[in-house]
Every structure is written in C-alpha cells, then in structure tokens.
C-alpha cells in the first residue's frame, strides 16, 4: 500500500500541462458526468462548482490530473477520500466525470470582483 501511495504521489508531482493529459483520457460524456457528479456525492466534499473546501476535499474543477491519476485516486484514494470501486462507478463513469470536470468554466479574475478587493 505504501508503495502505491508513493507511486501516486510521484504521478501527481509529474503532472504536466493540462492539454497534454487530456489527450490520453478516454472519451467522456459531459452530461452524464454532470449527473454523476451529483448522484455519486462528489459535490458533498468538493462543492457544486468543484471549488473544494479546506476540511473536506480539494478543488477538482478543471482538474489537471491525468486521467490515470484521476482514476487511481477514485479507486485507491491517497487521502481521506472514500474509495469509489468499479461496482459503484465504472471506468466509463469515471471518464464521464473526468470530462465534466475538465470542461468546467474558467474562473473569473478575482480583480474583476469589487467585493474581493475588500477584506484583509
């Protein structure tokens, strides 16, 4: 198990530009991915916009993980994330989810939001 964790950690560190990783991902159905994102409870920890939350789960919107890393994390989470085995989320479902996350809209520039200029 430790070896697998290390392997995954290495994989995440080796992440390259997003577009390069997308090329190796299987075709995914964005609409089905959107449905699965809610049905399988991804939003509970990562938020409806995939924005993440410090105590529950990181940002997944426009993920830059390669698909293989994404799938590995689903099946054998390196952290506190619950494992999603193929019996409840098939490889195709995972590809659909991945496609949905990848195409999420780019965030706005924080400087364009006056409210975010206030605060500390």
């Amino acid at each position, binding site marked *: 198990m430790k070896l697998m964790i290390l392997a995954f950690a290495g994989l995440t560190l080796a992440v390259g530009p997003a577009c390069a990783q997308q090329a190796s991902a299987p075709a995914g159905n964005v609409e089905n991915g959107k449905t699965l994102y809610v049905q399988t*409870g991804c939003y509970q*920890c990562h938020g409806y916009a995939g*924005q*993440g939350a410090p105590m529950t789960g990181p940002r997944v919107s426009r993920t830059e993980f390669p698909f293989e890393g994404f799938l590995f994390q689903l099946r054998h989470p390196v952290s506190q994330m619950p494992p999603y085995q193929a019996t409840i989320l098939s490889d195709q479902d995972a590809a659909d989810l991945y496609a949905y996350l990848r195409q999420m809209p780019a965030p706005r520039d924080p400087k364009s939001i006056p409210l975010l200029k206030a605060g500390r």
Partner: protein
Amino acid sequence: MAESELAALHRRRFLKGMVVAGGASITAPAAAQSRTPEKPNGNASPPTAAARANEREHPPEVDRLTTEKSGSDFMVDVCKTLNLDYIASCPGSTFRGLQESFINYGQNKRPEWLTCLHEEVSVGMAHGYAKVAGKPMAAMVHGTVGTQHAAMAIYNAYCDRVPVIIFTGNAGALNERRPGVEWFHSVQDGAATVRDFVKWDDSPMSLQHFAESTVRGYALACAQPPGPVFIVADTKLQEDPLDEREQRRLKIPRLVTPSQPIGDANAVREAAKMLVAAEAPVIIADRYARSQAAMDQLVRLAELLQAPVVDNRSRMNMPNTHYLCQSERAGGLIASADCILSLEPVDLYGQLNAMRDQLERTEISKAKAGVKVITISTRDLLVHSNYQGFQRYVSADINITADAQTTLPFLIEAVQREISSGGKNSIAMRGEKMREAYDGFAERARAEAVLAWDTTPISSARMYMELWEQLKQEDWALVSDGDFSSRWPHRLWPLEKHYRFIGGSGGYGVGYQPTAALGAALAHRDAGGRVVVGITGDGEFNMAPHTLWTAAHHGIPYLTIIQNNRAYHQEVMHVQRMANRHNRGLRNVHIGTTIDNPNIDYAKIAQAYGAVGIGPISDPNDLSEAFRKGIAAVKAGQPALVDVVMQPR
C-alpha cells in the same frame, strides 16, 4: 398565663382550623394571620390551671404558613457577592424558592434572571457569554430532567475549558418530597449525571455550606484551566425560614480571585534556549488567549523569534493581519519544523500525526523525526477518566504545566536574554521568508473564492464576502466557528482584535452555535453595542431555534445567518463514506441525514419568536440587501435572522 400568651395559642388553633378547612387560607395567609381570633364561647368554662399548663408543655401543632426570610434569600446574598450579572434559566420547581428570592428579594439585579426555553440554552448561553465577558454567568437548571437537558451544553463548556456556574435544586429528604412528580425529580446525588464533565460539584448540607461551596465553586471555575461547576441547592434549605439568630451566624467567605500558575523558571529558560537555537521554530496556539494583552504577547514572542504562528482558532490568538500569522500553511510549517512550541493544545497528537479514515486505519507522522516539542498548558490539571476529550498522549521534550497566557511574559524575557547573549543571524532571514509567504495568502484565497462565486446554491465564500461588505464599517464581532464554512472569515476578513472571534464549541456537541451566540451577543451588548454576527448550520440551529425568543424578550441584538445546506452535512459525508466502503452505492445516503421535503422556512421561525426574519435567499445577488436589512435591525436593537440556501461547505 398572660392574656397575650393565651391569645397566641388560640390564634394558632384558629389558623390550623383554616388550613384544614380549605385552600383559601393558603392563598391569603397574611390576611388570615391578621384576623382577630374569635372570643371564647361565653358559656364555656375558662380553662383550668392544669389545662393551661398542659397546653404550654404540649402546644398543639400549628402550621406556620409564611415567613419573611428564607434560606434562598441567603443564597441570593451569597450569589450577589460573586460578580454575577446574569442567571439564565428555564423554570423548574426544584429551585422555585431560589427563583422567587432572586426576582423579589434580590430585586432581579446582579444577577438578572434571564428566561430560556431549554436548559441547553441556559448553559450554552453562559458558555458563549464567558468567552466574551471574561467572567462567568450562572445557569439554573431543574433537578434531574433539567440537568439531563443541560448535560450536553455542560460537556461543551467542560471540553472548551470555559467557566460556568450551574445551580440545580433537589428535594433530598423523603419526608420533604410531595408524592408523585417530586419523587421523579429527586435524586440521591444531584450532580452524578454531570460529574464526569464538570470541574467540581457539591451538594451543600447547610446554608453555611452553601455559602462556602458557592464561593469555592466560583473561584475554582475561574482558576486555570477553567470549567463548569455544579452546585445542588437542597429544596428544604431553600424554603425553610431563616430566623435572625441563624442568619447572624452565617458568614459569606470573601471571593479571592486566584493567581494563575506560572511555568517553572528552569523549564521556561530551557524552552527559550531550545526556541532560540532552532532553525525552523513554529508556534501553535490553541486555547491560549483570553485577552487582547495575551494576543499582543504572542505577537511579541513571534516577532522576537520571527517564528510563524499557527492559530488553531480555538480562541482569537493571533491577528491574521500580522505577517507571522501563517495558519494557512500549517501542514508545511509543521513538516519542516525543528522545534514546536504548543500553547494550550487541544489535540497536539492530531496536529503532529494523521490517521486515514479508511477501512485500514493507517497513521503517518506529519512532523519530521527529531523535532523538539515544548508545551505550555494547564490541560494536565483537569483530566477525568471516562470522557476522552484529553486526546492521545504526546511525549513533549519540555512539558510545562502552567497557564500559557500567564507564563508567556516570562518566556519572552527568557528568549530576549538568550538572543542577546548568543545572537542569531538567521532570525531576521526567517522573517523575510514569512513576509513573502504571507503576501500570497489573501491572493490565493481570493482565487479560490471566485471558483463558485456566481453559483446557486450560494457558495460560502460569496456569502462571507457579501456579509463583510455590509459589516466592515461597523465595530463587529463574529461569534461562530468558521471551520464548517471553509474558514473564509479567517482567510478573507481581517481579525485583528481579541473580541472579533471566540472559537468553537469545545466538545462538538451540536446546538452550541445558536446558544453560545446568544450569550456572546449579551456580553457584546453590555460591552458597548458591537454588531454581532453568528453563522450557524441549519441542523445546528434546529437544536435551539428558540434562542431567538430569549433574544427578543431580553433585548439582545445579533444577526443569525443560517448556512442552510438542508442537511446534517457532516453526517451525509460519514454515511457516504460507509456506503462507499461497503460498495453499496450512494442512492440512500440522504435517508436520515437531509433536512428537506418539506424545506424549513427559518425566516418564519424567527418571526414567530419575535425576531426579524429574512429569506430564504437563494440568489447570491440578493444577499447584499438581505444583510443590509439584517444589520440595520440589529443596530436598532433587535435580533434578526437571514436564511441563506448554501452549498454544503
């Protein structure tokens, strides 16, 4: 026998007859007593000398129905010596004597009696109050059933190390109990239910005993580490008459505020050496600061060492406007630290180690091997066996059992001496790195805040920044924990004063938030009318929505914002984890965890309790106006609520 004595004897007979005859005499005892006794029948023979003598030796039993002074009056005298401004209570017959004495004999002043609609509110309110006021208030709970209601709130206060003075009543002797209900509400040991999680309890056997136990209890509650104390006031002691002779014998001990324990001088000196010698020291602050002065001391120590501070937010410890407040990179700092100073830790083991919540529970150390650990804490001075809030054991290199706040000036002095004698060039360089890291925090937080800025349900980031826009020009205080809403207030708001924030529940007993907010708002009101805001989850609010009635009734203004994710969201995630672990899919995780179908209208609830209710707000663009109205109501002296339909975290 003198005529006056005879008349008294006949009056006693007359009164006894009235009691037997019916309840009317009970409802008007004073009038009955003032009546002139009937003259003896003219045909009757006068009592013989023998009859008079017999009556004097064996006077007939006559019930005394009223008294001008009772034991409970003296109990009030005791409480009035203790700097108690308030006593919160949901009424209960086991303390009826005390209640009547507080509101009449005590003129309902210092302490003022506050009406709560559940004992959990009485104690939770006192919990929040103490963290702002810096002194305890009292709660009065009914014997047995009221104590059971109060138990979770007492546990939170105990875990959070907060002083609360709790009184209850109990009919101890069986011949003093009325048949029926009073037996159900009587116990052998009135404090047994809560003994595991109070700092001290007592069941005084006399009024003198009550005086000493109550003064002792107050002093113990405030001595570090503070905690709730529980005093059982026997109903007979409360209700029995107190004659002048007995009263003259009673003495109320003078309350002496205890000095707090300071760390051993040698240990403090060794700690200073260790900190100054370190290349990468880190300070972790938990339940450290009880005052602005304590915050200033922490800043002073951090600046001397140019050491980052990780504020765990159990109290307002370190201003997040200071570049050495580095809580946002706690993990990295702890991983690279060679010396950690932990001030009043709550769970140091959990801070230095991680356990995966998976089928196989694996652990890893988050700190590097050989890291030196120094703790300054009073936690070892209050450890009970049953409840496990003391967390796992950490073998510190220097474990100083002392009040961290009181000890810090001495540690600062020792660090100054150590620096001036040895000198450390690396200290200044360390500071530069901290400034660089700090500059990125707010920028990163803003970049994360925009990710769900326009979404519905509304994101927590958007909610907090819309609120900040309305709040920033006020003298404000946040009386809720930000951990369940992505810590946005600590990441995006400037928290630079001690009263801005009070930490969380301590024991994670759900129901703390609305109740503590009520008490905290009361203390802030008395401190000069700060605009108080408490953000509470919908699940938590439902534990005590009637706090708003108490707020409306007693004129305690504050804004409650419902972070309405329509679920016990933490439990949604737990059940989801189990469903994933068992490979059973997630279709049913909503069963028993969600709060919808029908959705609850919290604005209407607020209105029904006499507060201003606004919402539900589902469109982020409507937040601004809702908050503006809510804050305006608070500034006008009213409690207000805004219901915001939000994302889970």
